[in-house]
């Protein structure tokens, strides 16, 4: 018996001695880089790589991929030799030949329209354009800032039927049949492109990191020690000096937040943010922000906008009906509502 014990001990003790060292030497280091050239926002890539050179290759891949998506989904600028969404908006009634990545996004957006009962509608370009114009003017000339007149908004809202978007997958074309309608993919494009870019990074070998495109966060894999990525939900302006209100632990999952605290302008001291309700045609103040967790970045982006425009009960039943989707709503009085499985991700 004692001899056996002795053998066991002499066998295992060296391993016991090694335990403290496990997980210490992975040879990979954490890098992080930030750039500004796509989707009018800041993109951060952080993650593990074998060397700085290797990480820089991933950064370059992320940068060029996002820039491609940005150009295709842009509704404000023309680019040489590509048909983008501005080309589609500028040629109503014509079937415009577009890149398959545009067809993919538009088909996905129609799916999201159906899923959210029209609460994310990429055919709301006519209404959003008015708000964009008044917001831009209001930011440049705060003293004369104004709201778009309701007559103009309701007139524009007559041209927001998603059915006027005709996608011909076989021919590779898109046609907007109403000359007064316009596409605006602001509610889905960033999240969708972030998800696609993360896939491309993963295929290139980047298997442990976080891609954040202007608040659309995609967690790729887990940290090398097998733990979770800790990401914060920003404080949307409730009474607290902390930048982050909640900390979540996630792996292979996306977090997207839609909030009233980011893009807005002031008219007579009142804040008008950029998320416009498809029915009231106004920015709603039911929530300060809505965050969505999902394995699908595009879905998380589309849902965060839709939930922002829905009441909490309807939003919660939509979220609970979807597999693997969780959400949290931050109210102006500081209360936070959660979907049924959200607390499983909260840290601390």
């Amino acid at each position, binding site marked *: 018996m004692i001899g056996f014990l002795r053998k066991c001990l002499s066998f295992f003790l060296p391993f016991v001695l090694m335990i403290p060292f496990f997980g210490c030497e992975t040879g990979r280091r954490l890098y992080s880089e930030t750039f500004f050239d796509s989707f009018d926002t800041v993109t951060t890539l952080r993650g593990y790589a074998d060397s700085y050179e290797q990480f820089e290759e991933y950064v370059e891949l992320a940068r060029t991929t996002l820039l491609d998506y940005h150009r295709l989904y842009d509704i404000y600028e023309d680019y040489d030799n590509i048909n983008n969404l501005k080309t589609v908006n500028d040629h109503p009634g014509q079937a415009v030949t577009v890149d398959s990545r545009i067809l993919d996004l538009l088909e996905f957006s129609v799916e999201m329209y159906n899923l959210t009962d029209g609460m994310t509608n990429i055919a709301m370009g006519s209404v959003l354009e008015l708000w964009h114009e008044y917001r831009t003017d209001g930011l440049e000339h705060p003293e004369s800032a104004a709201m778009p007149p309701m007559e103009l908004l309701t007139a524009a809202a007559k041209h927001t039927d998603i059915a006027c978007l005709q996608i011909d997958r076989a021919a590779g074309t898109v046609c907007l049949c109403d000359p007064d309608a316009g596409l605006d993919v602001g509610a889905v494009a960033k999240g969708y492109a972030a998800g696609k870019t993360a896939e491309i990074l993963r295929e290139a070998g980047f298997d442990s990191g976080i891609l954040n495109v202007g608040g659309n966060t995609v967690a790729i894999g887990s940290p090398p020690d097998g733990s979770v990525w800790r990401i*914060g939900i*920003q404080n949307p302006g409730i009474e607290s*000096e902390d930048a982050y209100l909640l900390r979540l632990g996630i792996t292979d999952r996306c977090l997207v937040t839609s909030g009233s605290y980011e893009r807005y302008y002031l008219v007579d001291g009142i804040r008008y943010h950029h998320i416009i309700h498809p029915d009231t045609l106004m920015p709603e103040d039911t929530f300060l922000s809505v965050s969505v967790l999902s394995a699908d970045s595009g879905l998380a982006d589309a849902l965060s906008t839709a939930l922002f425009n829905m009441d909490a009960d309807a939003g919660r039943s939509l979220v609970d009906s979807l597999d693997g989707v969780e959400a949290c709503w931050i109210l102006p009085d500081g209360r936070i509502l959660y979907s049924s499985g959200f607390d499983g991700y909260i840290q601390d």
Partner: protein
Amino acid sequence: MKKQDLMLIGGLLAAALLIFLGVTLFKGHGEALLYAKIQVDGQEVARLPLSEDREYPVRLEDGEYNIVIVSDGKVFVSSASCPDGVCVRTGKADSVGDSIICLPHRLVITVEEEGS
């Protein structure tokens, strides 16, 4: 069991404990070293340890500025000349990966851990 065996086992366990404590303390110490990395337009301009209180004004070429403060282990922007003030209203950051962003000035402050 012989006396030598007990001594050997005891000795090895003591050694394991010492190494474990040493590594844990070393790791713990490493984790405590947080700093705020300040980047302007993607270029790093400063690293401010969160353990040292200080004021760091970021001055841009055209007279624009963001005043970065490190205090009590947290970093924040106390004032700025940007039109939206989002960086100031963002508040205080203190955990690895947290960021404070001033989009108009292309300023990004991220909390990082020493060694990355």
